[in-house]
Structures are given as C-alpha cells and as structure tokens.
C-alpha cells in the first residue's frame, strides 16, 4: 500500500510547510471564528439557563441531566431514528434498485436520469408546499385517488394523523433523495467488472443471485458510504419537518432539531436548548468516528 502510493507520488508532500500552512490558514481561521467559537459559546451557555436576554443563571450539568430524563428528548431522538430508517427505505433502496434497472437499459437512460435527479434541486420550502397539497384531505391527490377507487376509509388527513404524519413526511423527503442515490449508485455500477456477470450467467445464476452475490459486493463500499451519510444527515433534518408539520400533531413528528428550536426560541430555555444541541452534535460526531474507524479497519483487511 505504502509503496504503491510512493510510486504514484501521491502521499509524498510537495510544497513547503510554510506555504501549506498559509494556504490552510484563511479557511481554518474563518471556520474557527464562525464555527468553533459559537460551539464553545453554546457549550458554555448549556451550563447556564438564559431566557434570551438579561442574566444567565449557572446550572452546571443539570441541563444535561434533564435532557436524559426528558421524555420528549427521547421521543425526538426516536423520531429522528424513524426518519433515518424511513429515508433509507424510501430513498436509498429505490435509488439502488433504479440504478440497476437503469444501467441495464440502453435507450432513454439520460432522460430518466435527468428526471429522477431533478427533485434534488428543489428547495425544501417547495417540497413542503407541494406535498402538503398532495396530502390535503379536501383536494389532495392521495385522498382523491383513494376516494375514486372506493378506498374512502383510508382517505385521512395524513399530516394531521398521529400514526401516519411522520411517514407522510418521509415519503416527501424520499422523493427528493432517491434520484440522488440512484446517480451515485449508477456511477459505482459503471466501475464493476462485466466479466463477473458473464461468469455468473454462464454458471446459471438467476437475476436475484447475481444481484446478491455479484453486484452488491462490488459496490459495497459506496453502498455503505451512502447509508452512513444518510443516517447521519437525517439526524440534522429540520426544514422539511418544520415546514410540513412543525413537530405536530402533538409531538408525533417532533425531532431533535425542531425541539431544540422550540425550547430555545419559544420557551425561553436557551441554555437547555444549547445542551440538547450539544448532545445531538456529540452523538453525530461519535457515530461518524465509529463508522470511519470501522471503515479504515476493513479497508486494511
């Protein structure tokens, strides 16, 4: 591995340390001032309670203790997990399937690709508006369709239903995401070895066996990366939930980010909100580090 890299001349440093440092400095400084400093400030704030103006009251670690016993924190975290898994089901998996289908077509590939990727360009505000129309109980597409085919009893107010609201939002979120995943998987598939397919076909394998034993292992790396990225990114989600349900009905679609927002801005608990946000950040960092370590270890294998 190391010899190979040296041969390709990639890991050997080329520029002088001084130049490198100077190049990195502006970006790093900006990042520290506008990124790290606010986090430190947030952490300090999380050790106090502060109503948004006036004096801060020292609280030590009580905000954190409170967060661990707060049922809504647990509910929000759970909802984030549901959202993550949901997006994988409604975004990543369809993306994978479509990528395989599309890669095995000749005509029209570009058109389909263009269409499927398109939702990624759309702002979350627009997604929320359009999908709210689709889910509207009076004139929405879903309920009208259900009534038209006689399944009227399934025509409910999706975004106001405690059981289905989260999944309704997940479907909307998945709509923006599957094309993106598909495109990534297609690129990964292009890099696979056609001979392996032919060999498998000669051996008499059917499509599913080929899929499971030939295709997947070759794009394993990219697949893992996409799943991990999706999981982590889903914990930061805010816009689409805020715009479609605001965490409602009740707290059924409340997620960490919207809860933090509410606690700080609505309830004057900026300290507590900061504590919950620090916990969220730590969680995301921890998961990312663990995943990276696992990847490194398996890459070395």
């Amino acid at each position, binding site marked *: 591995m190391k010899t190979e890299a040296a041969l390709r001349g990639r890991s050997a440093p080329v520029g002088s340390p001084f130049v490198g440092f100077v190049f990195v400095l502006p970006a790093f400084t900006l990042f520290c001032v506008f990124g790290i400093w606010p986090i430190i400030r947030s952490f300090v704030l999380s050790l106090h309670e502060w*109503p948004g*103006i006036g004096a801060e009251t020292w609280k030590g670690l009580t905000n954190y203790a409170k967060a661990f016993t707060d049922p809504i924190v647990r509910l929000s975290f759970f909802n984030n997990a549901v959202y993550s898994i949901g997006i994988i089901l409604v975004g990543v998996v369809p993306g994978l399937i479509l990528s395989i289908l599309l890669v095995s077509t000749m005509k029209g590939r570009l058109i389909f690709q263009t269409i499927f990727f398109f939702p990624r360009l759309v702002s979350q505000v627009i997604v929320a508006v359009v999908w709210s129309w689709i889910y509207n109980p009076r004139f929405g597409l879903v309920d009208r369709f259900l009534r038209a085919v006689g399944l009227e009893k399934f025509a409910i107010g999706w*975004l106001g239903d405690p059981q289905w609201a989260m999944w309704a939002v997940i479907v909307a979120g998945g709509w923006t995401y599957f094309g993106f995943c598909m495109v990534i998987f297609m690129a990964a598939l292009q890099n696979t070895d056609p001979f392996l397919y032919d060999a498998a076909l000669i051996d008499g394998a059917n499509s599913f066996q080929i899929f499971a034993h030939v295709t997947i292992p070759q794009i394993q790396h990219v697949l893992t990366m996409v799943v991990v990225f999706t999981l982590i990114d889903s914990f930061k989600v805010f816009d689409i939930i805020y715009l479609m349900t605001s965490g409602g*009905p009740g707290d059924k679609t409340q997620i960490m980010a919207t809860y933090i927002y509410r606690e700080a801005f609505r309830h*004057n608990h900026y300290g507590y909100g900061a504590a919950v946000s620090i916990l969220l950040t730590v969680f995301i960092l921890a998961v990312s580090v663990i995943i990276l370590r696992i990847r490194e270890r398996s890459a070395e294998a």
Partner: protein
Amino acid sequence: MMRKLSLILAVLIIPAMVAFAAGQTEPGQKAILKVWDQWTEEGAQTGAAQAITMIEKSFMEKHPNVTVERTPMQVEEMTNTLKPAIAAGRGPDVFYSEVGIGFVGPIIQAGYIMDLTKVAKERGWIEKLYPISLELPSINGMIYGVGHELEFVPVYYNKNIFKALGLPAQPKSIAEFEDVCQKLKAAGYIPMAWGGKDWWYQSNFTTEVLWSFVDKKKIEDGMYRDGSWSLPEVRNAIETAFVKWAKNGFFIPNPTAIGSNEVNMEFIQQKAAMHITGSWDIDTYVKNVKDFEVGTMLFPPARAGKPFNTISFVGSGYLINAKTKVPKAAVDYVDYVCADPDTARIWVEVGNKVPPFKNLPAGTKMNPMLQETLNTLLMDASETTPGLAMTVPPEVMSFLQKSASMVLTGQITSDQWVDEFQQLWDKSKAEGLTRGSFKVSQ
C-alpha cells in the same frame, strides 16, 4: 492565465463587496424612530397595514423632526429576533408584540422595558383607553405596555343558512348549541368551520370552551393567582369539544390537518355554517364574503343561566425600549397610535379594528359586522375575560397550541389533558413566569 484568474476573482468578489456595502445604513439628520410591528400586508391584516401607513404619515407631518422607520414582521420572526436584537443594542425603540408575562417577563427583568405608569397618568391614557388595555400589560403595579386592538372571539355564523333552517340566532346553552349543530349536520352542512392545524385555532377554541364551562372567578384565580386548573369543569370542557363533538362530526373532517385558509374557505363557500374565529377576521369577511350575511353570536355557556363569557384580547401591545435614545418620540408615537381620536377613527374605518381609545369621534363609520360584534358583547349577562394567550407562560401556551389535536386524535384523554396542563402551569410557576409568581426584579 493570471489575467483569467484575476478576472474570475474580481467577478466573484465585487458582488460580495457590493453586498456588504449595501448593508451599511447612513446616519440621518433627523431623529430616527425604529418601530417593529406585525402589521404586514398579509391575510387578515391588510386593512391594518393600510391604517398604520396612514397613521404614520400623519405622525411624521405632526412631528417633522422625527423619521419613523417601521419594520413589519411576522409573529415568529419577532419572537426570534426581538430579544437578541434588544440585548445587543440593535433593537427597535418601539415594538408591537405579545404582552404576556411569559414573553416579556425576561425582557422586563433585564431592564429593557420602559415603565409607562407615570406616562399613562401624564398622557391621560387611564381616562382615554379601555381599562383592559392597560391592565393586561401591567404587573406588580407597573404598566409596561399599551394593549392595542381589542379583539373578541364570538362565533360568526351564516345568517342565510340559519334563517333557512329556522335556527336560533343565539343559543343560550351548550345543549342548545349542540342541537343547532345536529340540525346543521342533518341539512348537509358542516356545523363548525374549525381546523386544528394552525396553533391559534387550537389555543383560541380551547380557551373558548373553557370559558364556557368554568366560572369566571375560578378562571381569574387560575390566571392571576395560580389557582388550580384541575377542575371537573375543565375536564368536561375538553371532553365535550374534542371528544364528543369530534365523534358527532361537528367539525370539518380530519380537522387536525386543516389549516386556517381552508377553514376560511369552507365558511366563505357556505359549506360550513359557523366559523370559530375572532374579530380579526372581519376584514376577511369584508373582502371575501359576497353572497351571504355574516352574523355574530356569543359562544354559549355550559348551562343556561350562567353568564356568557367571551374571550377578549388586547391583540398585542405597544411597548417601549427602556434604552431608547429617543424616548420622547417613542412616547409620542405610542400616544398617537393608541390614544388619539383621529387615529382611532382610521383604525376603525380603514383597519376594521377596535382601537383601545374609548370615545370614538362622532360620525365614525364602523363596519356593520364590527358594530354587531360590539353590540352583542354589550348584551346583558355577557362578560369578557382576557384569553389565555394573554396571560399564560410559554410552555403552557405551547401546550394549548397543540393539545386539542392530541385529544382529537386520541393521543391523550381529557383527564390527561387536565393533568398535563396543571403540571406545566406548576412548572412555569416555579420558574416565576406566571402572573402570580413573577417578580420584576430578581
């Protein structure tokens, strides 16, 4: 190569510089009065936005050395940005916002709200304005704001439909009200245009039913003196409105997914016969209702003989930044907007709102719906009590804004509603955010 690079950089950096420069404000010659309010040109506030623009023009004519810079914003933006802006010294001199202690309390404790007690006496506000307009924005004997824009929450109904079905224009009890609803439903109408998606629908209607079932004295005990809310009447109110009536189909189907614009539409298109909203929607009716007459009735009390109790609001109110550099201009502005007969007339005629100024000048043309609302309220055996939104701490308010749909969808029972409400109240009391527990200086 270098030229290309510099060109690219220039193209990218110059807009950045322009953008920064555009953000700088220039110091002016006259005193600048920064006002933040919520009179945006949207929805039910269009008339009010026109009114305030006229009033402002007139103010600047009367005070030529003051320039008013008014920034209208949504409720939410104000909530987010007011406190940080004030604390960092970039806040407005005058602002129109919620006057509840839950929101303003911390700002008062931090010393940023001007004490208006003396000003109220000097400028004669105590005589000129409705008492409630000064009572609500005051605590521990200190007046800290001027409540503006009295709103009421009766029930608006479609007079044509009611007449056609021979229904009483003013049900005298909940039982009678339910009877009306049944008849409306049988005739194919939606009895109540109400939806639980927007938070103010939930909090207003919840308050409305509570006021109907609970005695005024107990309400005031609870609101002002941290009395108990764990009352059987409270439970009945919630159970009736959000369990019984939902089951009977008195609301728009799937109410938890229905927002205010759709609620309005159902009423305007005559699919629903009654509209659960407040007098702020009169402006909407004036602009949109063409083919039927809108009537006002009071939400009936739980049992016949109990006094009608309607929610009154002071909308939000005007407050003054204690650290303003132009205190006189600020007080002049508030005085003019709230306590002047000419502006009162503009509020009524252009804004379709009831201003806090009591004695409207002769000849003020009040919109008939607004007039009817006022008349109905002045009916015998009718009281008004400020709505919960005016007085409750933020966590209780959050609960009010979402709990109706929780009961509607069976997530909590009415008993659990009562328990949680009481719990949150006690929690806020411990934080000193209720009217009963708030202390101006900590």
